[in-house]
């Protein structure tokens, strides 16, 4: 099962990488005449940030699905939040009326991520302490 999901998420990430090429190429080709003086064809634009964000998001999901250690899964969640935050800042800079709203959103996201991480680590510590007192093989009281 993890092999399957690994293949799937790798292909997702690779797809994102391929899109980076296609997206920048197509965008530059279609409206190069109109906007050539604004952003040179080889410059860094919105699509680059979106692709970085999408790749990190895909990787985050892959980590959540594949890794079995609770702390690693938590790291996956942190990556998800970070990729969303990057999107907010990038859109804020390229699309929104002024560039501040998205930055404020991302600051809020960082604070919430801190709160989530503290809580999750407390739950994990609790499980770990319970594990120490009982048999590891019985670590799943719940049935799937």
């Amino acid at each position: 099962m993890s092999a399957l999901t690994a293949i799937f998420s790798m292909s997702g990430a690779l797809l994102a990488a391929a899109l980076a090429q296609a997206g920048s190429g197509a965008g530059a080709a279609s409206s190069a005449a109109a906007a050539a003086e604004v952003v040179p064809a080889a410059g860094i634009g919105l699509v680059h940030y979106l692709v970085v964000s999408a790749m990190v998001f895909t990787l985050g999901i892959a980590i959540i699905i594949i890794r079995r250690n609770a702390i690693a899964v938590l790291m996956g969640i942190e990556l998800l939040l970070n990729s969303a935050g990057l999107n907010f800042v990038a859109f804020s800079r390229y699309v929104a009326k002024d560039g501040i709203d998205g930055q404020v959103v991302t600051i809020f996201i960082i604070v919430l991520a801190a709160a989530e991480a503290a809580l999750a680590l407390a739950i994990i510590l609790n499980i770990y302490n319970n594990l120490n007192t009982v048999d590891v093989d019985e670590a799943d009281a719940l049935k799937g």
Partner: protein
Amino acid sequence: MTGSGIFNQVMFWLFAVMAVAPGFGILLAKDIVRQAFWLLLSLVGFAGLYLHLGADFLGFIQVLVYIGGILILFLFGVMLTYRMDVPLKEVKGWGLVFPGIIAGILTASALLYVASRTPWNAAAKATAPTVSAVGSRVMSTFILPFEVISMVLLVALIGATYIARRKEDKGRSEE
């Protein structure tokens, strides 16, 4: 900062690789400590991307709060549970694969759609130091979520101390 300069492009690609590549590290690393340091690298990459986008205050917040706070928290977690993994046997399993695949397809197709349909040459706005702008925005438009977030932190504080507290004696509540 965004634009044509070779230096800027090099910086972008450096930070982008720094943000993305550690994801594979976390995915594949055998050791939880290594994963934590991969995460550190990724977060630094994100901070760099924020700076590259002209969000200077946010970049420093990312370094201070995420790397200085959250990552240290992770390392504490790693240290405290170092003797064995906290396994998640039952969170895994086929129950997650289906939504995971749907979710992944959604993400990928959303990206495909977006990348193919959007005119990508939207002009970037000029950048300026953002500290005072962000500060006054938080204190005006976003005053309500700013106040509510204090409640979130309080809830997390109460909850973390409650859940992680030692086992209580039967018959009486804790001292």
